Every structure is written in structure tokens, then in C-alpha cells.
């Protein structure tokens, strides 16, 4: 995972509540066994007028001129501002992959679905929970101001508007540490491998039925 650096980026607004993971990346793209390349199908059913399928040449597809991300002023956006319960629905990590691959580094919303929120941190995408009134204003300001940018500083836990207004946000200290340093969480957990083994041994003593090994149709302890 890459380190999360402080940056100033173009903001795109998505003025809808309950944006679900099926909308973020439709199921037909989940057939891929790769982790990359989902950005071109981000919000596929809203973004294009024709039906998208894996392998379809993107240059031949018809963009939906009414979809907000297709407006020239939001090209290159790195921050998405959305409404309540963003990322609800399935556990597909393809949703954060698609947002990140498209170019987003930060999603700001009043609330996120739990699994989506959690998945974002695992890949270095920062979900920021912000008060509904602030989100309201950010969406309005973004719509009203061409080239509207926000500065995001994870270390200081702040979002700064062009007028210099500073909004502080909360983030779990462990997750922040992992993002800022681009840490491999598996490697961190494996530093406790001895503890896991001891726990497992004790568990095997106390609840041996949890360690029945399945071997084909036969069970052995």
C-alpha cells in the first residue's frame, strides 16, 4: 500500500444518499480475477448510456452527458463528496478498487456503510465522515465554483476549503498510522504470530470440536 500523502485536489459532488456498491461497480465486472482496471467501469450504469460488459472497448461507449462525473470540470477529481450511507450493500472490495483506480483518494460523506468503510482503509483510500451540514455546504460550493479544490491532511486530520476554513475529522489512530506509513497490515499481524499460536493452542484445548479437520468426507481430530 502506498503512503497517504497530504494533497490538494479537485472535488466532485454526488448528491445522492444510499449509493450502493452495485451502483459503484456493477456485478458483471466482478468476474475479473484481477485487482486493477475497475476505474473505467466506476458507476458504469450511471456513467454510460450503453450496457457495460467486461472487455468492452471503453472508447466505443456512449457517455451519459447528464451524469455529473462526466462534466469536464470534474475531470481529474481526487475527492468525492457524497450523502449518507455511502457504499451500502455488498462487501465487494471492487468498489473501493474502482474508486481508487478512477483517481479518488478521499470520499467525504455524513456516513458510510461499515464494510465499505473498513475496506477503504485496507487499500489506502480515505473515507472521511463529516457532519451533514458541512457535506451540504461542500456539495453546494462544489456545484457553484468551477475548479473547487480541498486540501486533505491526514496527519493533522483536517480538510481545508479554498477560503481557509478548516474542518477536523476523526479517524482511528491505528488506521491512520497504517495509511500514513503505507503499512502492510498482514505483516503487522504476523508480528504477533506467537500470540496467535498460543491462543490457538488454548482454544484447541478448551473447544476441541472447532478443530475437527475435514479431509474429503472423513473427519479426523
Amino acid at each position, binding site marked *: 500500500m502506498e503512503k497517504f500523502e497530504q494533497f490538494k485536489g479537485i472535488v466532485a459532488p454526488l448528491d445522492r444518499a*444510499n449509493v450502493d456498491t452495485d451502483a459503484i461497480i456493477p456485478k*458483471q465486472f466482478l468476474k475479473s480475477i484481477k485487482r486493477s482496471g475497475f476505474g473505467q467501469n466506476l458507476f458504469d450504469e450511471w456513467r454510460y448510456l450503453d450496457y457495460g460488459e467486461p472487455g468492452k472497448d471503453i472508447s466505443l461507449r456512449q457517455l451519459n452527458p447528464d451524469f455529473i462525473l462526466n462534466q469536464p470540470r470534474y475531470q481529474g477529481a481526487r475527492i468525492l463528496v457524497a450523502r449518507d450511507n455511502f457504499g451500502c450493500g455488498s462487501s465487494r472490495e471492487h468498489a473501493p478498487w474502482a474508486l481508487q483506480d478512477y483517481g479518488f483518494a478521499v470520499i467525504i460523506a455524513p456516513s458510510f456503510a461499515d464494510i465499505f468503510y473498513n475496506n477503504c482503509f485496507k487499500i489506502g483510500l480515505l473515507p472521511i465522515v463529516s457532519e451533514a451540514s458541512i457535506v451540504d455546504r461542500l456539495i453546494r460550493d462544489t456545484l457553484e465554483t468551477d475548479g473547487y479544490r480541498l486540501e486533505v491532511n491526514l496527519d493533522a486530520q483536517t480538510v481545508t476549503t479554498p477560503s481557509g476554513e478548516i474542518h477536523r475529522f476523526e479517524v482511528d489512530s491505528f488506521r491512520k498510522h497504517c495509511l500514513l506509513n503505507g503499512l502492510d497490515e498482514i505483516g503487522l499481524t504476523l508480528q504477533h504470530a506467537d500470540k496467535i499460536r498460543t491462543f490457538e493452542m488454548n482454544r484447541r484445548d478448551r473447544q476441541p470440536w472447532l478443530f475437527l479437520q475435514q479431509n474429503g468426507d472423513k473427519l479426523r481430530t
Partner: protein
Amino acid sequence: MKTLYDKLWSDHVVHAESDDPNGMVILYIDRHLVHEVTSPQAFESLKLAGRKPWRTGSILAVADHNVPTTDRSSGISDPVSRLQVETLDQNCEEFAITEFRMNDERQGIVHVIGPEQGATLPGMTVVCGDSHTSTHGAFACLAFGIGTSEVEHVLATQCLVARKSKTMLVRVEGDLPPGVTAKDIALAVIGEIGTAGGTGYAIEFAGSAIRSLSMEGRMTLCNMAIEAGARAGMVGADEVTIDYIKGRPFAPQGALWDQAVAYWRTLKSDEDAVFDRMVELKAVNIKPQVTWGTSPEMVTTVDGYVPDPADISDPTKRHDVEHALGYMGLKPKMPIQEITLDKVFIGSCTNSRIEDLRAAAEIVKGKRIAPNIRLAMVVPGSGLVKSMAEKEGLDKIFLSAGFEWREPGCSMCLAMNDDRLLPGERCASTSNRNFEGRQGPGGRTHLVSPAMAAAAAIAGHFVDVRSFIR
């Protein structure tokens, strides 16, 4: 004075990152269920990092999302789907992971086969790269969906880095009226608290109406906890739980069984346990539910009406309802029972178990689907559910009524295989999500119970199933 969730949580904490009781911990995982869609990238990264699965015996794998529900003798024709299923097969072979392959009778939807095999046991932590893992909480487990990075994390370490949720008790007291099912309880709860009402919470379902439910019903209820925003749903263990597990292939036997049962009986919330939030429903007030919109919280009763956006004062909510009605092709104030249908889908990890098929067959028996129904299909949750249903003659009941009787899989719940709605088609579905495009681009989904779906197939439009059973 601990809740069931507290007990399950503290029994699995390997290491706490800090003294903060709500801080991150390393949580041990007992059972890892794996399917073909969310695992290939996890296995790939694991291998690239030179790592191996920590405990292969904890893993049970099955392909369910991509598999065809029609004749499978010549394999999967879609090359992209086929590659994904073959990738799972190869990964399981490489690491000696137990997998039920596509033509194994035990194959089925991952959330159906875990409990069916006894691979889901009370007191376990159960994870899967699938949000409907909450289903397994019906067995007094801590069960929740994870993303692919976490699938890799569990493969590599047998643990997850996690943070404790808040707890919510949903208590349903009284007797459910005839024709009202666990699905209706689930939709009524979501209607009450909203699709984000459970965000940040683990929900425990309790009360006499819940205790009266079969394990199938409890699974339906916990399955839908995620649609209320809660990553985990659960029900305390009782005799119904224990009876269901007894004799299943992965369940303990003999002395181990007795030892396990003694522990399982402790897996319920203490009488005086305190929850962060309580929601109470009276069973007698719950009616058959039908969703009218593009989120499970957009739900009403079968005797209800499509809402009128003009009655909604909050501008964001009004806009959402207008948008949903536009997508769904519905008019404000329209009676639910006047909504006519094109397709009917009985299946999914929510409602594809034997009890669901029995309930639907009961309604369908001796009748024919309405002429306007282009396709009515039953997709059993597993090969074993299918064969049990066939022994009971349910397949014949469905077939002679004009339903199709398919092979097990996720099918038209999410339309990753060929089973899907065409643009504008309207479906009564026993699945869990009515999102835009969920069952096919432009498709219109109404979530209902199996009995309600069956009654709608016969009538051609929604109808109060209670009038069928009188």
C-alpha cells in the same frame, strides 16, 4: 451481564492494540468460507507475498455466484465466469482446501451449505468475502462479511484486525400471524430503522417470536441484518439450534458433542445485559411486506400503497423517492396489489432453504402461474436442498404450476450468471436487495417472502398471501 456479542467477542481476542475497550484488536477466526468472486485476488496476493494459508482446516470453499442454474454437464459457457470458478478450483487444490465443486451434490450458496454441513457452529467467528455472512449469526456465531484484503488477512494469519461494534437488541414478542414469515420481520425491521439504522451495530434478535422461528427462519432474519446496515446479526443458542446441528457432517460427535452442547447452552445474552439500542416490535402487528423502491427500506405492507413524494417534507428524501418511483415505473398512491409482474424468483441466500420451498409449494400446489408471468423460477440453495425437495415432490408441484426448477446457486439475486431481468422487467423476488440494476440492468425488483412470491406468480400481481391460506 454480558450480551451474546460481548461473549463472542471476548472469546476471540488474541491481542489488543491498546487499553481502549473500543480500540483495534486482533480477532481469531474459526471458520473461513470462501467463494469464487472475492477470493482470487486474495490468493494471488498471498502467493506473491510468499505466504500460505495459516489453517486450511478452517476453510470451506464453494463456487456459487457465477455457476449456471441450467444444465451443467458441459461446464460454464461464459469464459470469464469459467475462469473465475477454475481459479477457485486451482487455489483450493494447491493449498488442499476443502471445496465442493460445481457438480458435487453438496455444492450450493455458501450461506446455505455452511449451516447445512454443520460447518457453522455456535460460538464461532465466521467470515466470508460476502456481506450476507451475517446469515450464520442465526447459530449464535459472530459472523460478518469482509472484503478481499481481509480474506487475504484471514488466509495468512487466521485473524482479523477489528474493532468492537455497538449492540442493538431487536425484540419481537408474540405469535406471528399465519402467512407472515421471518422475511416479513426482517423487512419490517428495516422499514422501522432504515438501511443505515444498524450501521456500527451488531444486532441480536430476541423475543418469543424469534424463539419460535426455525433455524431457516432465523437465518433469513440474520441474513437481512446487513440490509439494515448491521455487519452482524445473531440469535442466542437454544434447543432449536442444537437440534438442527446434530448429526451434520462437520458437527462434533460422541463425547465432543456433549462437551460442545454444554458450552453452546451458555451462548445467549444474560438477563440483565445492556444494549446500546433497543427496538421492539409486536409480532401480531407485522403483515406481509413488499418493497416498492430501490432500497430495502422502501417497503410497505401488502395492503399498503406506493408513497406520494408530495407528502415528504425532507427534500433529500423526497428526491430519493421520486427517483426510485421513476426507476421502478410506479405511480404515487398506487395500491401495492395492483402492481403486475413479469418474473418471479424464488431463491438466494435469504430464502432458498427447504422450509422456503415448502412454503412456496404450499401456495402453488394445484395452481398455474398467471399468463403475464414470463418466467417463474425456483433455485434451491444447495444440491442437498434440491434433492430433499425432490424427495418431497416439491419439484413436481412447481413444474406443473409452470415454474422452472433449477440447479443451485446465487442466480438472479445478483445476476452474475445468465439469470437476469431485462430492462424494465418487474420481478417479485425472495432475495435481499432491490438496488437499481441488481437483478439485471434496468430490472425492477420487489422483495417479498417465498409465500408472497408464489402467490404473486399465481395471481400475476401482488396479492395478500393471507387470503390464499384462509
